[in-house]
């Protein structure tokens, strides 16, 4: 009798262990599946967003819209054939004769302004102030000669 009981307990324990392991495994699988589904949904959602953004990009870049905006905001116009040069010879020569004009010929240089006030040049032999008497004398002298 004792023998049988021991064996029964052992079997029960084994069964419970097996059952709990099975439950554990199935829980793991379910959890992983849920994660996978969530990630797949995320990916799909991202893909949908990308599609919407691409559509918006295509719409915003449609040539008609760009043309309207360019007209409105840019000061550029489509090039016409006259704007395009095929080779170097069509470009006007760079070295043209310099224009003789004082405005253009001015070299750009700065000389520092002297700090001291320029002194007036000394006047040599300053003329003596002639008095009226001297003048009269001179006149009378000339007149007498």
């Amino acid at each position, binding site marked *: 009798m004792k023998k*049988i009981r021991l064996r*029964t307990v052992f*079997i*029960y324990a084994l*069964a419970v262990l097996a*059952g709990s392991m099975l*439950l554990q495994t*199935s*829980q793991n699988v*379910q959890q992983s599946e849920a994660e996978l*589904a969530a990630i*797949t*949904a995320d990916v*799909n*959602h991202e893909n*949908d967003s990308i*599609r*919407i953004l*691409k*559509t*918006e990009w*295509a*719409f915003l*870049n*449609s*040539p*008609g819209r760009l*043309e309207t905006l360019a007209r409105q905001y840019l000061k550029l116009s*489509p*090039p*016409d*054939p*006259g704007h*395009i040069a*095929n080779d170097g010879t*069509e470009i006007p020569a760079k070295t043209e004769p310099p224009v003789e004009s004082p405005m253009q010929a001015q070299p750009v240089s700065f000389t520092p302004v002297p700090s001291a006030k320029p002194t007036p040049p000394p006047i040599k032999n300053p003329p003596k102030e002639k008095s009226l008497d001297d003048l009269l004398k001179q006149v009378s002298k000339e007149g007498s000669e």
Partner: protein
Amino acid sequence: MIFLKQARRHAIKLIGEKSSSLDLARGRLVLMGACFIFAYMFLAARAVDLMVIQGKPAALVDNGVVQEEAAAISGVTRADITDRNGELLATTIKTASLYADPHLISDAEKAAENLARIFPDLEYGETLRRFQKGGRFVHLKYSLTPQEQHEVLKLGEPGLAFKYEDRRVYPQGALTSHFVGYAGTGSEGLAGIEKSFNQLLLEGKPVALTLDVRLQHALRREMDKAIDDFHAAGGAGIIMNVNTGEVLAGVSLPDFDPNGAIDETSRKMFNRVSLGTYELGSVFKIFSTAAFLETHNVGMNASFDAREPIKRGRFTINDYHAEDRILTIPEVFMYSSNIGAAMMGQAVGTDRLKDFYDDLGLTEKMNLEISEVGKPQVPHPWREINTLTASYGHGIATTPLQMTAAVSSIVNGGYLVAPHLVLNKKAEENAQDESLRVVSAQTVHRMRQLLRLVVTEGTGEKADVPGYRVGGKTGTAEQQSGRGYDQSQLLSSFVGVFPVEKPEYAIFIVIDGPKPTKKSFGYATGGWVGAPAVARVVASMAAILGIKPEKANEETDLSASLKQYVTVKGHD
């Protein structure tokens, strides 16, 4: 249990063989009991698992998130249609539709008020009435924008939910409407490429077309201007790669926006490029002249007497730009003399001219990737008078697209090209196969010269774009009205090719019903309507495709050697 106790009591007494058989029976009973216990334990565990661990609140089952997951798993989305550079022409996006479950709405009045604020067209009173009526499903709005959806989510109302549906969107709007076509709500292609490639698109395989949206836009813009300027009813335009037959742009005006409501009976739906057939007039002189040069070994100085109209029964063939003198081949072509062209046709002969038109694919329905293709109207039976009129493009009606392909086949070096819309890298390798030759190299060269002459000296002077050496031919046809032709209902066209020494592109524009204006000095002919439009398209194309201009030089110009055969009148 009584049984077990009895068995135990008896067990003490029993010995020998009988005792072992009783043990056996008891063991079996224990085993069976254990089996049942395990079975019930398993069921109990499973019940806990299903209800407690995996269970979701009932309210969440109808939630949009669950729906979205389900929708994402099911099926492939309808694939994109792109142009040759990968620009989206048609795509599918997932849009949310809003619905409500009145059972779950916590505060119907507040919900209705908020909805009226987000969507001005959902009236407060009406929405509230529908919420209070009960039921489990109230549809509120189709195709919300992401912003609107965000606003609704911000309300946090548990009774509002979204249903996700695929919606076909055409980002370029009306620009490519006739070729891309449109799909119905059931994801079923109903016109254009959407229809003919329906199966492939449903399998998720994208389709790239030969169209280039930039050229398409330039062509449409210039045609629109021509139609506006001349108060015309509509028009058709094509830009074709003459070497491969790729349709780089195809515009039929008026057109429609495939994103909006589609009225299938509207004349806007009509594809004038590939479905409409028209008597295109003088542009056909390219074919009759090529046939004449191919069959007659004559110099360009061969002449035709254009002084008298040709009379055949009730028909009289007159010249529109009357010169009233004897004309050489270049003169017939550049002044677009019907009499001269009819004489060339007569010289070629009915059978040979008809065969030549057959070879160019002008008399049979062309093969194209869409189902909107018109069958040319060819005279039946084909009499001599039909040969004369067909030489200048009357009495034979073709689609503008096959006419452009025929012109391409002549100017590209004489190799027949088939127009096509779906990008196919292999097609380019097959081009220029000698077995596809329709005219000789000499005729090709002469035709290029003649086409250039029309632009430098003749009726197509307004098609000239300095630097790009355009060649072409004008066409002005009177449209049939009743049994005769109506002189005020014109079909003015111009077919241009450039660069003319070795053409790469053919541009054809035909404008339906242009009215003369003061600016055009009372003219509404191909030279005044079609030619300037083609010139503007060429200038735009050059900028878009980065084609370098070359300096104009009158002496080396292709048409220079023909000028000796031309007497220019009115220059003195």
